[in-house]
């Protein structure tokens, strides 16, 4: 079986973190991915940028409606995800508008976040 593990947290918790704590968390994630890969359990994954960078795409009556921010309808449940390669946000939004469920619910488009380089033991941040 393949499983998607979706990561949720309150961004306030992250924003309140010290630089060091944030650095440590990132390094822990990098090490975690290495462990999962070595075990053969890791297929793909990405970190996302903050919700401030989110844009929502909906298609209603054949028209694409773009709004700022993450999806607002708490009635909607996560149903899947696409990882898209696009030149810029305009292209990403256009690709997202062609995802069929954009007609039923909403597609939140958010840039991925590059994890920092892995630091060697003993190296400071």
């Amino acid at each position, binding site marked *: 079986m393949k499983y998607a593990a979706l990561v949720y947290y309150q961004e306030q918790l992250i924003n309140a973190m010290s630089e060091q704590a944030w650095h440590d968390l990132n390094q822990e994630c990098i090490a975690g991915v290495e462990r999962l890969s070595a075990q053969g359990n890791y297929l793909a994954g990405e970190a996302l940028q*903050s919700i401030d960078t989110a*844009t929502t795409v909906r298609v209603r009556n054949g028209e*694409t409606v*773009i709004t*700022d921010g993450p999806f607002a309808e708490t009635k909607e449940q996560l149903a899947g995800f696409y990882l898209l390669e696009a030149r*810029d*946000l*305009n292209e990403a939004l256009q690709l997202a508008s062609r995802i069929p469920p954009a007609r039923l619910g909403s597609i939140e488009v958010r840039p991925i976040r590059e994890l920092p380089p892995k630091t060697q033991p003993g190296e400071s941040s």
Partner: protein
Amino acid sequence: MRAHPSLLDALYRTHARRVQATLIRLLGDFELAEEAVQDAFAAAAQQWPVKGTPDNPQAWLIRTGYHCGINQIRQRSTARRRAHLLLPSEETQEFDDAAIQDDSLRLLFTCCHPSLSLEARLALTLREMCGLTTEQVASALLIKPSTVAQRIVRAKRKIRDAHIPYAVPASETLPQRLPDVLQIIYLVFNEGYSSSSGAAVVDISLTREALRLGEELAALLPQGEVFGLMALMLLTNARRDARQDNQGELVTLEAQDRGLWHQAEICTGIEWLEHALALTPVGFYTLQASIAAVHAQALRPEHTDWARIVRLYDALCRSYPSPVLTLNRAVAVAMHDSPATGLSLLDELAHHPQLSRYYLLHAAQADLLRRQGKSDAARDAYQKALTLTTQDPEKRFLISKLAEL
């Protein structure tokens, strides 16, 4: 030619925005471009009085600003030991006139991008496109300068982090994105038009800025709806001196002194409208402007061609269905046909969730009842409308109508 400080001031006013729009493209960063513009003008102030003003000041300023920006990037990247940072190279950059002309359009589409909040788009457009200072934007929108500054900082961060491109949308998405830009320009106009009643707040005229933006857009992107928006703004603005009485109270279109309407602006508005109507498909702003034109061309209220207005509302409601437009259409039907026909249409709307608590619906009902001579029912409807608005000018208007019954 020697450059005098006053000449530099004039150059700053005419070129700074365009130079900045181009430098944002060349340097790929709003803040960096802003600094580079300042640096370029500082260099001009130093060099031009000695060496003379260059033949093409704008090209000189762009080139100088570009080099200042590149130096900044180099210094920053050394400071942060980010050797991998890609520097834009001059050879690959477009310094030609056509590319520079399009930069204003790129900037406008970026400032009005739908993935930014409406408030952010408004502040960013006024700041970047109109060249207003943060303080001027704040006083024009009646909000705190710190709020404006925060909105702009956040918007710029999102442009950078989400990779909102500095580009005019591709032709297949242009029809879908143009309304976003028109909406912001119309919003700037309405902010100015509706607040002009307040104590002559600042010498910033948002209506003037909106008209300037519209004109600039029309020159760069000659599309029907851009012309239609220009027509709508001019035809509306032509009524500015008649829409309030000496006490600052609202005056309905019907009761306005039409001698106060600015005929020159009406003529220009109609010219824009004719350009708009020559292009298809006829869109939202062109239809609204057509309605405004019917009013503008009626010398007296009773000469208004209501049949034409009803037809225009029919077209609007078909293409852009909205409860408010349906309400306006019902009022037009009442004026063309009879208050009774209008009232029956309004009754159907009274159950609409968005409209049942909308004061204008009840005010419209009251007005039609008054025309039928049903004073008691009109009074009830005015009272109902009064409970649904918090705006002082609207309240005073409704109270004066109640007193007239």
